């Protein structure tokens, strides 16, 4: 069911090139959200959110926007600031203006040149054997794009 209907009508998604689907929740530039914030649809943050953010779909944090808590989303495009851990089911993109301080767990990570990241990155798909106790650690496949160049590493288990 479409919220934004017909061609001559407003679609905020069109104003942001990296938002492929329609946006259902928008936090405006001078709006402050305090508390745990969950949505079934896409979330576009232009302001400040001081609390956990959860969505099964796309989270977009625009340049100048802030999230000061943990994030859980299906996909995320970060151009603003996130101070907290991020758990993204599929693809996480950090653009050149992104500032992230926290651990990241995701399936695919895209980092543009200029993005700042401080924290541990964990990805699914790559298994690393610990030589001392023989335990499998980490993930099997590592895929990332650094400054426009894509690198893919694979390690056998």
């Amino acid at each position: 069911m479409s919220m934004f209907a017909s061609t001559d009508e407003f679609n905020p998604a069109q104003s942001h090139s990296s938002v492929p689907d329609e946006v259902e929740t928008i936090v405006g530039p001078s709006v402050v959200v305090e508390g745990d914030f969950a949505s079934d649809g896409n979330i576009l943050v232009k302001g400040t959110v001081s609390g956990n953010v959860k969505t099964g779909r796309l989270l977009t944090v625009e340049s100048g926007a802030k999230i000061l808590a943990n994030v859980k989303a299906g996909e995320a495009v970060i151009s603003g600031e996130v101070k907290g851990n991020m758990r993204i089911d599929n693809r996480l993109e950090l653009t050149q203006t992104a500032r992230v301080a926290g651990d990241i767990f995701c399936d695919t990570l895209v980092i543009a040149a200029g993005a700042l990241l401080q924290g541990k990155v964990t990805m699914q798909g790559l298994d690393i054997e610990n030589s001392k106790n023989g335990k499998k650690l980490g993930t099997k496949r590592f895929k990332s794009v650094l400054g426009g160049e894509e690198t893919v590493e694979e390690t056998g288990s």
Partner: protein
Amino acid sequence: MYVYLYDNFLKHRRYESVIKAIETRLTEYGIAGKIIRLQHYSSAEMLIEDEIRKGVKTIVIVGNDTTIGHVLSRSASFDAAFGFLPVGPQNEIAQVLGIPVGVEACDVLAKRRKLRLDVGWFNNRYFVSQLHIPPSNISIIYDESFKVSSKSGNMELVVCNLKPFVWSGKNTEYIVHPQDGKLEAFLRPVYESKILRRHQFEIPSIFPFEEMVVSSKTPFPVETDCKVSKEIKVTIKLAKNRISMIVGKERKF
């Protein structure tokens, strides 16, 4: 059995021909019924209650957005099917319901495509079109989980049920059609333009919700379906599947 509630403005001569054409079409379909003209002081709630007691199953509202808002906000809890024949200007709700303005609306009514619609509920009464709080120093708690406020203090709040949200920005007029199943809250913080020294609206923040509490230290006005009241605390909820409404195929939900 059908009962038709005519708005008071329809007695104007300019609507004579449309009303006559509608009545002819309804007779052709065999769904003509009792006509009640709503006056300024008539209580739609009492009229409908009385007709339902007499065995009426379908109440048809004839008029515009104001008429449908006025009638349904007082009678959403009644066990009857509601139809709508939009006539004249200010008919945005009809567009959402997929009902054409004028005689063609009779075709939709005759087909009796019924849907149960959600309505908004606020401080013990319903609203079908919109709830509007003009710029005020308010804070909002959504679904008992998060609080929304503005850095500038004052915000305008529009909660849409059936009536689309329209605002102007950058020389363009934007229209957002609400979806069924949720209420949409459109928040616009107010800021002062440095050049024009005039209050201007920021682009709206949009939050779909099922329950919200709006509060303020000072009383703020609340406008719903053409009725204004002053409140300090307002609880707005979604009453799911409250109204049985006859809708058109071209509806927007």
